[in-house]
């Protein structure tokens, strides 16, 4: 596999504070890479740097010149009563025609395809506030797919999503990865999801501590070290080792 992006010695943060320091790794073509680490480890900061939303203080990213990236943020802090329908939301594309603003038939067709791909075509007339956590996540990914990205950047996709939503999400991401050869970088606290969905896992705590396959990284002693857990937790975390790479059918 060739490297899609080469991240070299990146340091970044907010308002002069350093959140990540000297981070280097490659993102391979059509791989699913998960970023894990404790709260405040700099995972979302790194994702924002990859999305081009945050300029790093130091370091460089090579290979992103013609790469189409789509970023799906973590927080959905919008107004629950905002009357923006799913289809209107999908129509907000920079390359969509100027007129009509929301109901261009070409964009609607593409939007329907993206919704069908995500299995949520029936939601097209609902407003965003009416969606459940899982539905919302899939609509957000449908929105991201409208720009036909090579790299999908997901920040905490399963926050507030129930077990069924999580299962559906996993299947969708795996399909996109296998069928469209789309690379995915995902920040997650859900170590079970990470252990069996990812091709590689990167452990971050201000610096990059470990990167490797889930079997290599999801080890009790590695995780308890990264998360600052007591030695007694190692036994509990071993459950994750056995889950690593247990792929859903």
């Amino acid at each position, binding site marked *: 596999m060739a490297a899609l992006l080469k991240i070299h010695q990146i340091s970044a943060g907010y308002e002069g504070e350093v959140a990540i320091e000297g981070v280097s790794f490659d993102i391979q073509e059509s791989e699913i890479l998960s970023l894990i680490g404790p709260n405040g480890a700099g995972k979302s900061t790194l994702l924002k740097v990859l999305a081009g939303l945050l300029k790093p203080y130091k370091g460089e990213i090579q290979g992103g010149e013609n790469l189409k990236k789509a970023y799906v*943020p973590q*927080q959905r*802090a*919008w107004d629950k009563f*905002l*009357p*923006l*329908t799913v289809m*209107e939301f999908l129509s*907000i594309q920079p390359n969509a025609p100027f007129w009509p603003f929301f109901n261009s038939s070409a964009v609607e067709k593409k939007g329907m395809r993206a919704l069908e791909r995500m299995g949520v075509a029936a939601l097209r007339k609902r407003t965003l506030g009416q969606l459940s956590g899982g539905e919302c996540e899939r609509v957000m990914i449908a929105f991201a797919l409208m720009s036909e990205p090579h790299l999908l950047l997901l920040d905490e996709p399963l926050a507030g999503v129930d077990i069924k939503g999580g299962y559906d999400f996993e299947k969708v991401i795996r399909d996109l990865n296998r069928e469209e050869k789309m690379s995915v970088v995902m920040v997650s606290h859900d170590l079970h999801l990470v252990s069996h969905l990812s091709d590689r896992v990167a452990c971050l705590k201000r610096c990059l501590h470990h990167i490797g396959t889930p079997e290599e990284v999801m080890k009790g002693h590695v995780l308890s070290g990264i998360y600052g857990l007591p030695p007694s937790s190692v036994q509990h975390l071993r459950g994750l080792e056995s889950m690593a790479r247990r792929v859903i059918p």
Partner: protein
Amino acid sequence: MMEILHYDFMRYALLSAAILGPMCAFLGVFITLRGMSFFSDAISHASLTGIAIAFLMQDYWGFPQDVFWVVFIFNAILSLVMAYFFQRTPLSPDTIIAFSFTGSVALGVMIISHLGKYRLIDGLLFGDIFSNGPRDIFYQLGLALVVLLFILWNMKGLSLMILDNDMAKSQGYQTERLNYAFALLIAATVAVAIKMLGTLLLSALIVIPPAAAKMIARSFQQMLVISAFIGLLGSVTGVLISYAMDTPTGPTIVMVQLASLLLVCLWRRLR
């Protein structure tokens, strides 16, 4: 009723209401959904200082005759300073707004008091739509055109920014530039519309129609259209009722807008 159209002041007042009502309501959809109602309210209150500075200039230098440009420049500087503070400091927006506008209003009242023009305060606070002349209508029409073109041209970026600034940025929209331009647009709108409702009541025109529209709209496009319609209907009806019942026009317009909001609430409950 038709005889009211014989009076110039009445024709200008109705025309002004028909331009500013829907324009403020249309812009108000983006202001309210982006959580900037308090921002526009602050700019509107702080306009008092812009007017006071214009009076001060008139007193000392004898110009400008028209206070509009001074108010606009003052509002624009204040909006940009506030927008800069929002984006570049850890202070919360409501804190920034609170100290900016209380400081501005305090300065404005001090200047007006120094000039001994306290008697003008009434008109400044509550508006005087009947003092509109052809020049005001010209400014209002020009601004309405700018607002409409700006919103239409940036519709997609502004709509996405309602949801998430980072998402809009990742889609290639120049969010920081759009934020500054939007703040300037609010400054210009307030400077032009202040004559209609005054510094104290203007936000009613920006906030109430979108609030009413939001209660019944089933899509974003519906919200835009319904808001502009309520803005138009409320403002024109307010002017007519004020004339017929000899009530102060600014407050009457606000009461009509509020009545429309209550009616919409009632209709929503019965639906």
